[in-house]
């Protein structure tokens, strides 16, 4: 096929850059998948450990207090707040609002601000205020 290779082809699949709205959309999926796997397993483990007795519950607590466990829990709480923020954003989009370019980008950015702020507030309180 005789074709000029340099000719730009629609829809320019290789020419794009990250935008806040696409990041928010992808993060909604990624955090949802993470919460459904890691988050659900931790929640189920916590409940089953509490129902199984002191020893298995203390084993769970040991992991929860471990630095690695803390990182997982902090990550899960951020994933939850991010999924919550983008989820509420989806409710707004579902009713047909918030599609104007600037509004859409603003609220996509706000989901990151909200999730990071809430995660910092939660763990700041748990680790430094409550101790």
């Amino acid at each position: 096929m005789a074709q000029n290779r340099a000719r730009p082809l629609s829809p320019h699949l290789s020419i794009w850059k990250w935008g806040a709205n696409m990041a928010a959309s992808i993060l909604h999926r990624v955090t949802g998948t993470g919460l459904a796997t890691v988050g659900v397993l931790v929640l189920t483990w916590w409940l089953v450990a509490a129902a199984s007795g002191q020893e298995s519950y203390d084993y769970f607590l040991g992991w929860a207090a471990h630095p690695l466990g803390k990182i997982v829990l902090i990550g899960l709480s951020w994933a939850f707040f991010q999924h919550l923020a983008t989820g509420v954003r989806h409710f707004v989009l579902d009713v047909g609002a918030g599609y104007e370019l600037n509004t859409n980008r603003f609220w996509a950015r706000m989901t990151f601000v909200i999730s990071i702020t809430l995660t910092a507030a939660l763990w700041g309180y748990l680790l430094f205020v409550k101790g």
Partner: protein
Amino acid sequence: MGTGTGLGRVRGLGSAKHGGAHWVLHRMTAVGNLLLLPWLLISLVRLPTYDFTTIHMWLAQPLVAVPMMLLVISVFWHFRIGLQVVIEDYVHEDGLKFASLTALTFYTLGAAAFALFAIAKIALTGTPN
């Protein structure tokens, strides 16, 4: 019914009638999660400690055990729908898709059964001394 184009083959058949309900249930369980998960988070933050006895006594109360069970149902139902959408979007081979959706269903129901049984056991057998 035509046999030519894709549009010709499906024209006149109407919708499959299930997509809408699936979509609405996803939102409905999202509202459930929006009520129940902040409740869980705030309750946990307000607990004095997280040792076995405290958690047991807290979970054993009817006003905690029942919302906790509702939370498990709402959250698990929501993620079952969400992961199904993810699988249907990215897994296109029929056999692998069926296997993935089967594994997802077993995982959801299995984990839900463990979680609900654990809450019921704590609530119905009381706190050990």
